[in-house]
Structures are given as C-alpha cells and as structure tokens.
C-alpha cells in the first residue's frame, strides 16, 4: 500500500491506484476527461496534469497515467501544471460551439465544470471553428459532433467495453469523428451509456430532448424493474413525467452502466392509458367508493363461496412491501390460496434455486466480471438480462473462458462468437473444466438445466436469471407463507375468485373465475376484466424494496408524484377551470397501501408496517449503500 502526499494531505492507497484516483480518495478532484473509472486511462486529454515534486518521474505528469508510489509528493496546484490544464481547456474550447443554451448537457456537463475550474476565459483563437455533419443514430440518442472534445470515451466504451462494432473512431488529426459508417440506429444494447459517458453534449437522450435542465429534475436513487438483476438507476422526472433514466454506480451490480431496456422503457409510466382512476364495473369512482365496494363484494363472496375459494395473487414485479401485504391480506381474509407465481414449474424452480443459494455461492455481477470461468446454462443473458452479458464480456476480456452448456446441440469445441464474447460449447455441466478454475461462475436459467447445475459443489458460484425484479423476494415469501402457484390452485378446482396485485396473469384465466379486483399501474388484460380496478403507483412514484437475483435487497426511492403528464392533458382540461387540490391522475397509490386501506376498511385492527416482523431488517435499507443480502441467515 503506497503512502504518498498530495497537496500536503497524506494518502494511502492500494497498489496500482493512479495518482488521480488517489487524489479523489481524499476529495481532491483533478480535472479529467478521457479517464473514466470503468474504462481506465487513455492519456489522451492531458487535462489531469499535476507536478511530481518527489518521486519518479518528476515534473509535470498526467495523474491518470501514473501509479501512486511510496514516498511520492504531488502538487495539484503547481503553477506549471495549472498552466497546462488551462492550455488544454483553451485548446478544447477552440472548436467547441459554446451552444450551452440549446444543449441538453448544459448543467450536467463535465466540460462546463472543468472549463470554469481550468480558468480559461478569454478567447485567443480567432479562426473558424471546425464543424461536422451529425448522424441519425436511432430514436434514442441525439448526435451533435461539434461538441466533441475527442476524449475517446465513447469509442472505448462502445467497442472495447461493450463489444459494439457499428460505432467508433474515424478520421485523423483535427477531423476525428465519432460515429457510424452511415446513419442508422446504434446496434449495441448498451448504446444509451454513451449519453452518460460522454463528458459533453455529443450524445444526449433524445427521448428527453429539450425538456429540462439538471436542476429541474426530480431525481432519486432507484432500481431498474425491467429484469431480475436490479441495476441501480437515477430516474429523472419533471412535471409528472418520467423523462429519462441514468445509470447509478453500484460496483457490486451494474458498475457504471445499465442496458438500453433499463434506460429507454419510460413510456409505460407516462402513458395516459395507464390506470389512473379507481374503477367499479368500468365506471370511474373515487377511491373511497372503490374500497367500499370492494369490501362489500369481498364480504359477499366470502359468505357465498367461503374463504377457501378466494385467491390473493402477488407478483415478482411488485415490491416486497406489496407482496408482504398480500400475504397479510390472505391471513386476514383466511383466503384459501396465496400465490406469487402463476406457473407451477416456475414457482417450484424459482423456490428451489433461490432456496439453495447461500451467501458463499450466490454470484453478484461483480463476481461474474471477476470470474475466470463462466458457464451459461439454459439461459440467454443477452436476451434476458443484458447487463449479465456485459459482465460476462468483462470476464472474457480479462481472459476468462466462457462455455455454453447445451446438451448435444453442437459439436464439442465449436466456438460461438457473439459481439460480446467468444464461447465454447460444453455438453454438460459435468464436462466443464471447473477444477482448473479459481473463480468459476455458472449462470443459470430458472429451469431444470439450471437446477441440475446447482449440484456442483463450491467454489463455483451461481447466478440465476429470474423472472422479475422481485422474483427472489417472492420466492422467499412463497417459502415462508406456503404459497402455491396459481395454476396449481386453479387445477385443484377450489378457486372461484381472485384479487390480484400487479400481476400479468395470462389471458386464459378461466371465465368462471370472478376477478373481484386488480391493482396495477399497467394496462393489463386483467385490468380490462376486473370488476374493481385500483390504480397503483409505478416504481418511480413510491418508495419500495426489490430483492434481486442474487438475494440482494435494495431500496428504491420515490422520484416523482403520480399524475397525468402535463403534455397528456386533454383539451377540455385546458385552461383548467376547475379548482382541484390534487393533480389530475394522481389517484395511484402504492399497492401495499391499497391493501392496508382495504384491510382497515374491513375491520382489521392495529396494522403493522409492511417491513415488520421477519422483514424488519430491511427497514433501514439505504438506497445509496449498495443493498443488503437476505442470504445471511442461511447456512
């Protein structure tokens, strides 16, 4: 552990840390453009200059290129270093268009910040600026090459980190171009990260174009709900509209990046067609009326059919809080069935897979990135959970061997080349050279092949791709509460009615089943069919908890208030002649709260908060502390 002195502050950092990171560790921010923690050093921009007073090499050096060494004395404020940094900013500003007022990056722009920090303010170059022709890169990403400062981050990310081949560096000298051979949608499923990683406004989120400045956003730490990995995000909203989603760093999971599905799937939150008003038999009612009617009808149902014939259905896309309350509702009504998974096999396999994982055997994405052998068993990471595929690529880039386990489908030894990694075929888990690996990770689908792989003894770690952001949590609850699959209960023929929460029950729910109510924020088939509809909040409109595929509980915070986006108002509502205390479309309420309200309406006394009892330990979850494994109580 080298010890060095940076601006009179003594610093001790792990071997291999560069001077720039060492300075960051004690809060000294040295300007940098090309260096990025996930991409490493490039030495291209030359703005991170410092002066080495003691140690080798002496003099002005680029802090990103220089490993911190024992006994080094570094000055970040040295006159010569500062002068060089000022020059670098001047050079970059020679051609930068200064179009901040119409640039979506304005306010969240590294170039703005470091230009101010660099102290360059008076223009000495009086020639023409160079200009470029921009490209159409698809519906998600805007391209404005004039703003480019040639830090090469985009190309390094896109090609090296993410294995993309349709975008890169072209040209030379002062006419370097970052783009595609021709106009067209970026092919990489990680293209949206260009928006985050570009330090200036070359790549901006087209879906949020010209909508808001950084200081206008409603933002909060959140978790992606679009698959089971639980990548960390920062959604940004304004005027009751979810505008964009940015990656939030979590070194154990997604690192610095997210996939395009996680970034560009906002439409469902904003759509005016979303259930926003409680409905009884298709009629809009206020929430009191909806709850009264539901209480009444439930009462009647229980009297006629008996509690045995009622099923309460939770869902792997609903928060822990909602699913815990679903179980309490079952207890309260003594309903015959509680179900979290519709499909019987999926229910069994998910419980088995999650039930057998321990702290030592459950692999995080960081474990995958650090693996020396990765086997893909009965799943398609690129399709199901793109960030898993990106993690596999990082392992592969560092030399890990990647295997696809598919019995008898291809010749042994054949090589699969995806843009992300090369893999070889293995016939069975037993044929994997696990003994040669120090850090093997098996990535499994929730199926028989995946479960079979679990027979392997440690040190192998496992990552299961589950069905939904809270599938792990649902499996925990199902085990704890003795929940069955809905299909199983239906097959037994006892069920006559269901109350469902944020579920995607298949259309083929038999006609003779009475859908007493569904609570959801998505316009599902069940919403069409339910007698009573309770609109719920989407994940960005509430605080909640998901447990991801590795058993890591994570808290997401409310980003925005529910309500019709202002641009979604109907012409009749404009100008707004009514005087209302709440925003239009603001009825949605978290599912767990609907359940609480319903239970107290039906006479339940002294309701505990959802995260109580066994789940009390998740109450203090801090969204910015990386999450908490629920596996710690296991063997």
């Amino acid at each position, binding site marked *: 552990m080298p010890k060095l002195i940076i601006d009179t502050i003594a610093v001790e950092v792990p071997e291999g840390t560069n001077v720039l990171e060492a300075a960051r560790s004690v809060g000294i921010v040295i300007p940098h453009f090309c260096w990025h923690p996930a991409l490493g050093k490039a030495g291209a921009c030359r703005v991170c200059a410092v002066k080495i007073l003691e140690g080798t090499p002496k003099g002005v050096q680029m802090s990103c290129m220089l490993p911190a060494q024992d006994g080094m004395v570094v000055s970040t404020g040295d006159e010569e270093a500062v002068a060089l940094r000022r020059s670098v900013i001047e*050079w970059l500003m020679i051609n930068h268009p200064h179009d901040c007022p119409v640039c979506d990056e304005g306010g969240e722009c590294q170039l703005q910040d470091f230009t101010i920090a660099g102290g360059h303010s008076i223009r000495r170059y009086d020639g023409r600026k160079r200009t470029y022709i921009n490209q159409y890169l698809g519906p998600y990403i805007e391209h404005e090459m004039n703003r480019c400062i040639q830090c090469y981050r985009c190309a390094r990310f896109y090609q090296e980190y993410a294995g993309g081949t349709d975008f890169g560096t072209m040209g030379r000298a002062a006419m370097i171009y970052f783009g595609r051979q021709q106009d067209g949608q970026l092919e990489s499923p990680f293209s949206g990260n260009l928006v985050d990683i570009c330090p200036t406004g070359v790549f901006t989120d087209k879906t949020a174009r010209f909508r808001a400045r950084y200081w206008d956003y409603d933002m909060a730490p959140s978790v992606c709900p679009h698959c089971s990995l639980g990548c960390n995000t920062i959604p940004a909203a304004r005027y009751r509209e979810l505008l964009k989603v940015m990656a939030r760093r979590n070194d154990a999971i997604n690192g610095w990046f997210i996939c395009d599905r996680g970034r560009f799937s906002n439409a469902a939150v904003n759509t005016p067609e979303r259930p926003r008003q409680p409905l009884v038999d298709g009629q809009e009612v206020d929430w009191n009326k909806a709850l009264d009617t539901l209480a009444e009808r439930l009462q009647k149902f229980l009297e006629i059919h008996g509690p045995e014939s009622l099923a309460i259905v939770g869902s792997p896309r609903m928060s822990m809080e909602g699913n815990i309350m679903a179980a309490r509702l079952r207890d309260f009504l003594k309903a015959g069935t509680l179900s979290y998974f519709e499909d019987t096999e999926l229910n069994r396999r998910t419980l088995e897979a999650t039930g057998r994982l321990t702290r030592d055997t459950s692999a995080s994405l960081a474990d995958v990135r650090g693996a020396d052998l990765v086997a893909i068993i009965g799943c398609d990471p690129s399709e199901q959970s793109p960030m898993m595929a990106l993690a596999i690529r990082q392992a592969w880039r560092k030399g890990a061997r990647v295997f696809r386990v598919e019995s008898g489908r291809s010749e042994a030894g054949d090589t699969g080349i995806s843009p992300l990694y090369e893999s070889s075929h293995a016939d069975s888990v037993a044929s994997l050279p696990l003994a040669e690996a120090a850090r093997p990770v098996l990535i499994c689908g929730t199926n028989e092949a995946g479960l079979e792989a679990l027979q392997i003894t440690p040190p192998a770690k496992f990552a299961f791709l589950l069905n939904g952001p809270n599938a792990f949590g649902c499996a925990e609850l199902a085990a704890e509460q003795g929940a069955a699959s809905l299909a199983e209960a239906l097959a037994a023929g006892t069920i006559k009615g269901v109350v469902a929460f944020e579920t995607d029950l298949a259309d083929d729910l038999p006609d003779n089943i009475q859908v007493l109510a569904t609570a959801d924020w998505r316009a599902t088939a069940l919403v069409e069919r339910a007698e009573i509809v309770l609109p719920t909040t989407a994940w960005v409109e509430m605080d909640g908890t998901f447990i991801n595929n590795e058993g890591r509980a994570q808290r997401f915070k409310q980003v925005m208030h529910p309500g019709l986006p202002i641009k979604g108002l109907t012409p009749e509502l404009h100008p707004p002649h009514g005087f209302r205390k709440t925003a239009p479309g603001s009825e949605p309420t978290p599912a767990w709260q609907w359940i609480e309200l319903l239970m107290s309406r039906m006479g339940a006394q002294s309701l505990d908060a959802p995260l109580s009892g066994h789940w009390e330990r998740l109450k203090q979850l801090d969204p910015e502390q990386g999450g908490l494994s629920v596996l710690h109580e296991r063997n």
Partner: protein
Amino acid sequence: MEQVLFRHNHPDRMVSLEEYRLEGGFEAWAKAVRAMSPDEVQQAVIDSGLRGRGGAGFPTGKKWSFVPRDLPGPRYLICNCDEMEPGTYKDRVLLEKNPYLLVEGMALAAYALQVNHAFIFIRRGYEQAAHNLRQAIDEARRAGLLGSNILAGGFSLELDLHQSAGRYICGEETALMNALEGLRANPRAKPPFPAIKGLWGQPTVVNNVETLANIPAIIERGPAWWKGLAAIPEAAGTKLFCISGHVQKTECIELPLGITLGEIIDGPCGGMRPGSSFKACIPGGASTPYFTSDHWQVAMDFDAVAKAGSRLGTGGIVVFDQNTCMVGATLNLIRFFARESCGWCTPCREGLPFVQHILERIEDGLGRPEDIDILREHVQRLNYAFCALAPGAMGPVEGLLRLFGDELDEHIAKGKCPFKGSRSH
C-alpha cells in the same frame, strides 16, 4: 570515402543477389548463423557504438539488451520503413539500390534477439522499394538464407513485408505496432516499453532500415573497423544524409558521421546554387530545430548536434538560401505536422492547428506582438503531448523563435511578409 551501405550500389538499378554475394553479401549472415552465438552478435553491435538511424539515435545494442530472454511466447523484430519525415528519403534510396542489405541486417538482428518472425513495415508510397524487398526476400528464402533451419545452423526466420496504409504517425514505433495489429495508428502508453510488451503483447524491437542495414558490415569487418569509419572519435560509422533545398546537388550520400555541416554542403553538395547564399538549414529532418551559418562547423553527429541545440534526427538536411522566409518555411512544416497528428491527444490535435493559425496570421501580415507569446507557450506546452510527434513538430518553431526572432518581429511590425515577391527562384 569508405562506403558501407552504398558499397554495392549500381547507378541505374538494383544490385542482384549474385552481385551482392560476390562482393561478400550474406557472408556475415553465414558466419553468424554457423559460428557465432546470439550474444556475440549482440555484443558486436554494442561494441560498434551503432545508434538508431530512425531519428532518436538510441544505441541499438543497448535497445536489444532490454529484451528479456526468459519470457514465454514469441519475440518480434520490426523494421521501420515508414519514412515520412519531410526531407528524409534515405531508406527509399537504400532499398531501391540494395534490399539484400536490409534482409541480411534483419536476419542478423533476429538471430541476436532469437526472433523467428520479423516484419518490415513499409510506407505505401514506396512501391519500388517494396517490390525490391519482395524479390529479395523471395530470393533469400530460395537460397536458404531465410526460412527454417537456415544454412543448417538450426535457426529459423520468417520475414514478412507489410505495406502500410501510410501516415507519418505510423513511423512512431508503438503506433506502428497498433497499425500492424490492424488497430488505429495511435501511439501506446509507455511503459510498458516495446522491449517488454510490444507487438501482440510480446517483446519487440523496432529498428530503422538504415540501422539494420549497418549490421552486416559490423559483423563482417568487426565493430572496431566499423566504428572507425566516423570522422571523429566520439562518433561511430557512416550515415546516409539526404540533402535537399538550395544546393547544387540534392541527393542521398553516405558520409562519415561527425563530418561538419560546412564540409557536407561545400563538398558533396557542390555548394549553394548560383545566386544563393546559405541562410539556414534543417539539419536532421523536419522535426529538428534550424541551423544557421553559426553552425557551419558543427560535427554532424548525435551528441554534437544536440549540443548545438538541434538533433541529428534522420540526417535529412534541407538547405534554405537568403531569400527564404523562415516564417513561411516553418508554417509549411507545421501544416504537415498538424495534418499528420494522429488526433489522440489534445495538445497536438488542437495545439498544432492553433500554431498553424498563428503562423498564417503572421505570414499574412495580421500578426500581433502577443502572437510571439502564444508560439513560445506552445513550444513549452506541446512537450506534454502523448508522443514525440508534437514536441518534434515544435522543433522548427523553437528554432524560429530562438534564431529568427527579428524576422518574426519584422513580419508583425511591417504587417506583411518581407520576402513576398522577392523570391529569385
């Protein structure tokens, strides 16, 4: 004067393999591969005092000695024939006259380094030289001088010629390796140095054509003899000088290292052209600061030229007469460097066009006194570029400021170029 590199040359054509061998060609190679150890070959090169002819003048034997012999995997040797430094054309002449010399030199270097696969990276425009080399490699292979188990000595060597797509930066050794690997020709960070981690991550030596072409003579006649070819005791061997500009004879000539600038110009160059008098020259290729008549007596050797404030570089001498505008000459050079920047780092990519803009402004009569400060600043700050291209590019600007400050001031004060319209040729 003793000729080592041009000994076998015919005025009008390339030497043939038979002719080369009749005059002792490939004898050094046969001797080495049969009777010398790799270390003995390397030691001879160290003893000879041979320094790199590609521009930096790094001692060749020393460079070889950095290559670790115990790392697993292959080692590589690359001959750098990118030769795009303006004013430099020695490697082309050498290869057009006698490609066998390079083949033999590379074989010897490869043997010393125990390299079994070597590459020649040649500039795209050098079609004739490439053609000659291809022929020479084929013939040498057929004659059993390359290939496997060469001359039954147990050593094997494959030699591949790569015709580059071409750019000045491809001559920088790490950019060259990227280009050879099919990547963009951006230089790589050092450390790690190529001797440890070079082509495809393996230990690699990059040497210039002329450097390698000297090795057969060193092995054949011995390092002491070769060293003694120089004009002064501090120097070693001969050097190809490429002369251009306002002298009588512009050609590539082999001369003893350490000969003075004046001797070169007045001797083999036949003096200045009629009506021209010597004003300045670029002593060692476009990236070296100017010499003036004050430097007439400077011995043209690495250390002496460096001591006099410039660099021997590649030995490309460009001579300017009294009617040459040094601002215009410098601008011309800077245009080249700005265009040839690889675009990787900010100081070079953006700084050189800025310098170009300032020089254009001054040359067009729009210069301001503060422009001199901007130029000075750039001379200093471009030292912090990622590779040696940008500091090299500022060589002539540094020379301009140091030696021709009055000419710059005159441009600015008069609001025009004092040489415009006064050129005699």
